[in-house]
């Protein structure tokens, strides 16, 4: 084993790539949960986003169009969940699971003819000479557009939730849907829009995996990232900026595990590969003590007459 084979600058730069899918999926789910809806279908929406993005990017040759298609695909799938939970008043846990099971099958079906193809590459943003700054350049300024978009999205969500009227309404709907309804807010419409936003974000997160992190399509390639994103929302105590912190911690871990595999640590590969999931569980346990900050109406079905 030779730990000096790990280049610290490249290692830290890799955090961003590992964290971006999580950031997108988690920030979308955070908004959904702040409106009082628990959508467990993140994994399903991510994998559908991954194949929609991949297929579009391959067919059009444009990775950016791919990401747009992934957002549309994720949002379209989330509409199924919105229909079940908001119109048909179905149980949110069961509906979310249904979405994941369906999404895994549906993506496999769509992806059949895309196995083994390389997608077009999305180049890094050209910061010109700034990139030559030692350490900071390669770590902060050597990434593609989507990485920065993810950062901007988190800050935007934070600002909107905290300072805008839309944010206030969103939070009101999530804390107490009956009171929000009594005030005249359209609870179902607001929740449906939030669910679609969450779906679009999850879709982009999935496409980041299939287009950039792994650059290929394989069935079930999201391998639990969607579930980790759900855990990340709990980790963040439903606060947007803490999503960033969690995602980088986690991205760092994944990166570390891959690097250790690369330099041939004496631990078998399988045990390294299970570490992100084990650590997620440990984090959940450590944080569960102060977990009572969940939105008041989270997971409850809203019906105006009841």
């Amino acid at each position, binding site marked *: 084993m030779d730990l000096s084979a790990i280049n610290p600058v490249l290692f830290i730069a890799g955090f961003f790539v590992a964290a971006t899918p999580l950031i997108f999926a988690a920030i979308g789910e955070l908004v959904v949960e702040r409106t009082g809806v628990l959508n*467990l279908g993140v994994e399903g929406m991510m994998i559908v986003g991954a194949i929609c993005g991949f297929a579009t990017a391959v067919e059009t040759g444009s990775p950016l169009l791919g990401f747009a298609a992934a957002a549309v695909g994720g949002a379209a799938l989330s509409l*199924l969940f919105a*229909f*079940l939970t908001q119109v*048909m*008043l*179905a*149980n949110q*846990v*069961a*509906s979310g*699971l*249904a979405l994941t*099971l*369906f*999404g*895994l*099958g*549906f993506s*496999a*079906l769509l992806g*059949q003819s895309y196995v083994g193809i390389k997608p077009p590459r999305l180049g890094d943003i050209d910061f010109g000479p700034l990139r030559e700054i030692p350490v900071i350049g390669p770590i902060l300024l050597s990434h593609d557009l989507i990485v920065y978009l993810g950062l901007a999205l988190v800050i935007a969500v934070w600002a909107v939730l905290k300072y805008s009227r839309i944010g206030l309404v969103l939070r009101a709907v999530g804390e107490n849907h009956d009171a929000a309804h009594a005030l005249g807010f359209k609870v179902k419409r607001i929740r449906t829009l939030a669910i679609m936003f969450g779906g679009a974000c999850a879709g982009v997160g999935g496409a980041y995996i299939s287009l950039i992190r792994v650059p290929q399509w394989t*069935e079930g390639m999201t*391998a*639990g990232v969607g*579930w*980790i994103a*759900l*855990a990340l929302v*709990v980790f963040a105590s439903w606060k947007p900026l803490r999503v960033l912190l969690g995602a980088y911690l986690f991205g760092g871990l994944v990166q570390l595990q891959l690097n250790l595999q690369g330099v041939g640590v004496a631990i*078998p590969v*399988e*045990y390294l*590969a*299970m570490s992100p*999931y*084990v650590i*997620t*569980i440990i984090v*959940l*346990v450590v944080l*569960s*003590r102060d*977990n009572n900050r969940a939105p008041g109406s989270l997971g409850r079905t809203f*019906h*105006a*007459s*009841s």
Partner: protein
Amino acid sequence: MIALVKRAEPSRFFSLAAPVLAVVATMVFGGILFAFLGKDPLTAIGTIFWEPLFGEFAFFYRPQLLIKGAPLVLIAIGLSLGFKAGIWNIGAEGQYIMGALFGAGVGLAFYPMESVFIFPLMVLAGAFGGWVWAMIPAVLKVKFGTNEILVSLMLVYVAEQFLASMSLGLLKNPEGFGFPGSRNLQQYASAHNGELIAGSGMHWGVVAALIAVIFGYVLLARHRLGFAIRVTGEAPRAAKFSGVNPSRLVLFCLGISGLLAGLAGLFEVSGPAGQVTIEFNVGYGFTAIIVAFLGRLHPVGILLAGGLMALTYIGGDIAESKLGLPAAAIQVFQGMLLFFLLAFDLFTNYRLRLGRAEVA
């Protein structure tokens, strides 16, 4: 304007009709999907639902129905108890894998000794493996209030990696020419979970599934614990006042579902599957979630739903080989079934009324 009005009592009719409606709707939309894939929808649906039961080779497929259905029913019975009480064990797939690993591990430890005690020991070990794996989310929930959905799911991925490491390492067949995977338990008489009646597909797992159905029925209908489960699901506050201990309920529900999933894994690995391999698990733990809901979380319903789901697996295999229908199409088909079921369930608790809703 169409308005929804809550029923005073859930409709018994729709509670039974919803699964039937869901199956019909899935056939219609599944047919449309198959048409999009360029297959004749009627032939495809016919192949999936008719061939395994009454087709030319039905004698071959009917035993398969028991083989595929048994693990689904076994796991779904356990899951349904928790679901009824609002305890969501989503990690049955992991418990299934651990049951298989523990059970097969015990069996292989005795190789090549022959004894009638080996198989019963393996059954105990399999049940224990599933139970232990389910106890992790249960204890964490009771001790720290951790979300059991996320923890049980994370443990599926851990179990999958563990399975890979075992089939490449400790349990690898020393005479397997370096290929991953364990010895074949079908060739080890004391550890083989073979057919009890030749050609019927009936093995110990099928017997266990039937016992589980009866056990589930008696528990829910006759036992205090079953009462506690039902009350907790329907009125958590009332349950507290009537002296239900929520922690004990979590430990019991997760424990029993882990145990049954572990048994399912053991019976599968020692019977139909035969060996521990990296991809030995085929998602029964997840499909069982659909089976539990489709069966209305009722033991008899689950038995029927398990049969139906087994039918789609076998029919799907036939459609794959005869019509070239992609394997993933069946997965979509099963997912759709759950969607429609959840949607039609609306009518169990609500009535449609034309005109505006009255202001309550």
